[in-house]
């Protein structure tokens, strides 16, 4: 079974090629079948491989499959080879299974779009690239997948290309993430010249042997990799592209900008965790980036009125939690939250997409209202997703993963009360903005009429994801609930255990109670402000300070303004000034000087005998003078 591993990324790639070349001439049903089916087959193979991996693990807990040497120059020998271990297996399963559900959903969602086959071509290319990213056994191949998903993100954000706004958003996403990618590429060069390899396992082995904890090299590499991770995962200071990326179709947001691609940064850091263990400063930076991002994005989400932008900021914020977990060394907690987040955030985006589709492409949730009655299935699934996002205790998956992160943020050796505080404040804000969205959209008076109800291909993924968002957390129970933890046990073949004080169960229980109270208070706040007494929220927004703060949050803390003013603006200005290429001016002047001489000397050739005679006489005098006086 393991030998089929290469098929998992290869099938979507293959289907991409077919769709790209013949898509135009294919009937829609066939392109749909091919686009959805290819990811479906990949998902089936992944699940079978997963079952075999868990029932009879390969030697050393990993499986390696080499296809060919990509570019062999000197000792630089990156291969096209796949490495399957617990971490990449988890990623592979999420990408293919959630990916399949989203593809199925898209089949109906995009049915009437003129770019139907183009859409599935890009989506399949994305799945293939993402699988390459997570299965790569060396960093160059990982980088390939990394750039590949970036490309698909670019193509899919700008999918509705007729609106030039979408094109601008796509370009922004690509360029901002490429800033991070370049940092990562430099990190790769540094690794190669110091360890002589870019094979991930070899790097991890030799780094831990050759570098001491706290070494400058480890710090530099760690920070450069972090640069790549913040770009792709939309963390501070490169988070600005994700809210704009919502210009793409909703399934794209669900697949790329929620469940899979944006968590690539989390995967990268977990994958190269040894380097971060060796560089405590870099690790602390990861935690701080995560904590700061989760707060900033959370506050921004509070003021959005486009339902997808709320979810976008919420994604940034939730990935902030994952970075926080990585930063305190709780790698498997980060991966756990990645998994649950993939379930509930994909669900929320798909739900939002269903709403938008049934409501004539309306994005503004303040124009919706009362959708609970009109679209019951969407409502219930969306409610489950929201519950998981807000971490409603015990019954939702989000509760278990977020709780674990909060717990580790304080108790891990590299954790601190401040990080925990940021997390708990973030949890409150999360609950508020999530249920603000739920109350505004689904409760109150209906302001719009839905034109139809979603069909089976949309409903099925919603239901499946809702189930996963409920039960997905049961694979990792805290000590207070019996400590049934197969997830972290499985991950420990790749990711180390958290180093931290062993505290008693009662303390853990206390922390959990605080978290639960905070969440419920947040939901209650949303209930009061956006359902019971909406005038309270309106009054607050009208006050001078309130409206200024509101605008500040709405604009995402002014990052766009800042970047435009201080980076893009000056840059474009310099380029504009030099449009004519100033260097050419030098040559033009040279040519002009020649022409001036030409003009001057031309005057001497005027055809007048007297002038020539005078010239000869004058010249003769000078020559005689020179001869006489020297």
């Amino acid at each position, binding site marked *: 079974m393991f030998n089929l591993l290469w098929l998992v990324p290869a099938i979507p790639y293959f289907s991409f090629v077919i769709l790209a070349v013949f898509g*135009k001439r294919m009937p829609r049903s066939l392109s749909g079948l091919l686009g959805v089916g290819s990811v479906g087959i990949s998902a089936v193979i992944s699940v079978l491989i997963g079952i075999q991996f868990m029932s009879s693990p390969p030697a050393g807990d990993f499986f390696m499959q080499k296809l*060919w*040497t*990509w*570019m*062999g*120059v000197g*000792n*630089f020998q990156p291969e096209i080879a796949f490495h399957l271990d617990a971490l990449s297996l988890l990623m592979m399963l999420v990408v293919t299974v959630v990916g399949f559900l989203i593809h199925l959903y898209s089949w109906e969602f995009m049915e009437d779009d003129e770019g139907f086959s183009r859409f599935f071509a890009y989506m399949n290319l994305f799945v293939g690239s993402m699988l390459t990213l997570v299965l790569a056994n060396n960093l*160059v191949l990982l*980088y*390939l*997948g990394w*750039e590949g998903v970036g*490309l698909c993100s*670019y193509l899919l954000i*700008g999918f509705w*290309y*007729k*609106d*030039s706004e979408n*094109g601008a958003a*796509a*370009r922004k996403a*690509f*360029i901002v993430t*490429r800033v991070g990618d*370049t940092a990562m*590429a*430099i990190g*790769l*060069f*540094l690794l*190669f*010249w*110091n*360890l*002589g*390899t870019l*094979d991930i396992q*070899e790097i*991890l*082995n*030799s780094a*831990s*042997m050759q570098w001491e904890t706290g070494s400058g090299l480890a710090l530099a590499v760690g920070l450069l990799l972090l640069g790549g991770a913040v770009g792709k995962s939309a963390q501070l200071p490169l988070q600005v592209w994700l809210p704009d990326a919502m210009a793409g179709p909703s399934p794209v947001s669900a697949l790329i900008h929620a469940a899979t691609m944006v968590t690539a940064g989390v995967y990268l850091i977990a994958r190269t965790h*040894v380097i971060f263990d060796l560089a405590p400063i870099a690790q602390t930076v990861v935690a701080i980036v995560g904590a700061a991002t989760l707060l900033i994005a959370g506050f921004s989400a509070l003021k959005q009125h486009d339902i997808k932008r709320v979810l976008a900021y919420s994604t940034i914020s939730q990935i902030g939690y994952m970075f926080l977990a990585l930063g305190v060394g709780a790698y498997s907690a980060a991966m756990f939250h990645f998994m649950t987040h993939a379930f509930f955030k994909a669900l929320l985006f798909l739900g939002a997409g269903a709403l938008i589709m049934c409501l004539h492409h309306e994005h503004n949730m303040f124009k919706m209202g009362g959708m609970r009655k009109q679209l019951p299935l969407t409502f219930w699934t969306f409610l489950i997703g929201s519950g998981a996002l807000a971490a409603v205790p015990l019954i939702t998956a989000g509760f278990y993963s977020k709780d674990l992160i909060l717990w580790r943020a304080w108790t891990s050796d590299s954790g601190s009360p401040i990080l925990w505080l940021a997390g708990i404040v973030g949890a409150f804000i999360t609950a508020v903005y999530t249920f603000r969205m739920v109350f505004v959209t689904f409760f109150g008076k209906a302001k719009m009429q839905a034109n139809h109800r979603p069909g089976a291909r949309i409903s099925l993924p919603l239901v499946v994801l809702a189930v996963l968002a409920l039960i997905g957390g049961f694979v990792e129970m805290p000590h207070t609930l019996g400590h049934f933890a197969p997830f972290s046990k499985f991950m420990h*073949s790749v990711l*180390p255990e958290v180093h931290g004080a062993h505290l008693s169960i009662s303390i853990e229980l206390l922390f959990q109670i605080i978290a639960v109270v905070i969440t419920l208070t947040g939901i209650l706040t949303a209930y009061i402000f956006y359902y019971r007494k909406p005038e309270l929220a309106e009054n607050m927004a009208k006050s001078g300070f309130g409206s200024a703060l509101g605008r500040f949050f709405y604009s995402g803390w002014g990052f766009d303004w800042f970047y435009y003013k201080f980076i893009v603006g000056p840059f*474009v200005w*310099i*380029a*504009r000034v*030099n*449009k004519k*290429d100033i*260097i*050419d001016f*030098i*040559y033009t002047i040279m040519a002009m000087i020649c022409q001036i001489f030409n003009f001057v000397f031309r005057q001497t050739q005027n055809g007048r005998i007297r002038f020539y005679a005078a010239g000869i006489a004058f010249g003769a005098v000078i020559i005689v003078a020179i001869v006489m006086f020297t």
Partner: protein
Amino acid sequence: MDSSILTILTFLPILGVILIWLTGKENHSMIKIIAWAVTFIDFVLSLYIYFNFDAAESGFQFVYNVPWISHFGIQYAVGIDGISLWLVILTTFLGWLAVWSSWTAVKDRLKGYMVSLLILQTGMLGVFVSMDLFLFYVFWEVMLIPMYFLIGIWGGPRKIYATIKFVLFTMLGSLLMLVAILFIYFKSGGTTFSILELTRFCVTLPVSTQMWLFAAFGLAFAIKVPMFPFHTWLPDAHVQAPTAGSVILAGVLLKMGTYGFLRFCIPMFPQAFEQFIPAISVLAVIGIIYGALVAMVQKDVKSLVAFSSVSHMGFIMLGLTALNMQGMQGSILQMLNHGISTGALFMIVGMIYERRHTRMIAEFGGVFKSMPIWSTFFIIVALSSIGLPFTNGFVGEFLILTGTFGVAPVYAILGATGVILAACYMLWMIKRVLFGELTKDENKNLTDLKLFEKLVLVPFIIMIFWIGIYPSTFLNPMKTSVEKLIGDVTKYVKHTDIENEAEAFIPYNPHEPQTEEHADVRH
């Protein structure tokens, strides 16, 4: 066959010229068929060379050597090694497709046009296969004439300005090079022009002499590359040249410059090269960033591509200065890549120009709707130009930057910013040309690519992905030659990075017993 193949390859286009000469002036289809067939056979011949090329041999192969002007020791000597192999194939490949792309574009004075293209091809091939310095110089100058006519006769509105600028720049460099060639010839005793023997002689010259000679050769090549600040002839020449002229100019002629560095400057004057490395690297990096910045604000697609060439050629020069396997092989591969990607870009731009008679970015917008196939080709080629993985550009740039980072991290980091800038200007242009609403009526009725146009572009696309996915085909044959070059040069360079390299890191040994600490991390 083996000893005469390079001669046949080089002069086959001249046979085509004779055949075209015999054809009637108005018989356009016959002229086109002859040119097409000749360049195609030339391409096939170059593939024959590839299949019979011995990758393990580092020296010249298919060597043919007869006295030409024996009084001065001038020989007709041709040969090919791993460095020139791909450039020869690139030349025949682009030469063939350039003829093809002119099928409908050129109607005026077709006979002269095709003759120019064919003579140009002989000149270019001659430059790459010459093993005699005099012969090399002859071909080098021969090349200039057909290009002069191609731009001057079939060019755009400012063609005279552009050709004169092109010729003046090139001539200035060539003349200094001629002086240097004659100096070496007489200094070495005036018996031979053989490149191999003169190389053996030149490396013994004192460093101060080498510096002057390097400068004289280097200027000629730097203008051809073109390196910043000698690049300003390029945008003018490109904008005015007809499509096939631009393709050949960007695809092959610019490579003459970098090839010159590889074949002459670096092996002949290694110590001088060492002294010049900082200057070349700085100019290369400036070129990368400067070219990209200027490209960003161009209004004409062709001049955008021209400035992007300045940026990309900067990468190639940067890789050469690294003087290690990654940098050098990356550079040679990138020469190939640039020829393919930029050649394809010029063809694509030519196709829209034929339809709309303009290349101004502002005149377009939303073209994806009316010409989806053309747009798809455009996007793929643009992405390969900005170095996306699985396309050729990535492999080249990544190797160059890896190599450079090993010896000069700062230059590599600065060069890497060029990768970001490339994304900026290319995607911005793509967005403005292809995406958005179709506003102009002229763009609504554009017809998409015809079959033959697709057929012209498909080989480029195949090469883009082939090099991107399986570059070993291209890297392996050049390996031993590059190794030899680096070995020869580093003999004379005091500070050798190659030797330090071995000590700089301890290669990982998988058979080593695992330490305690390490076992801890894994489980």
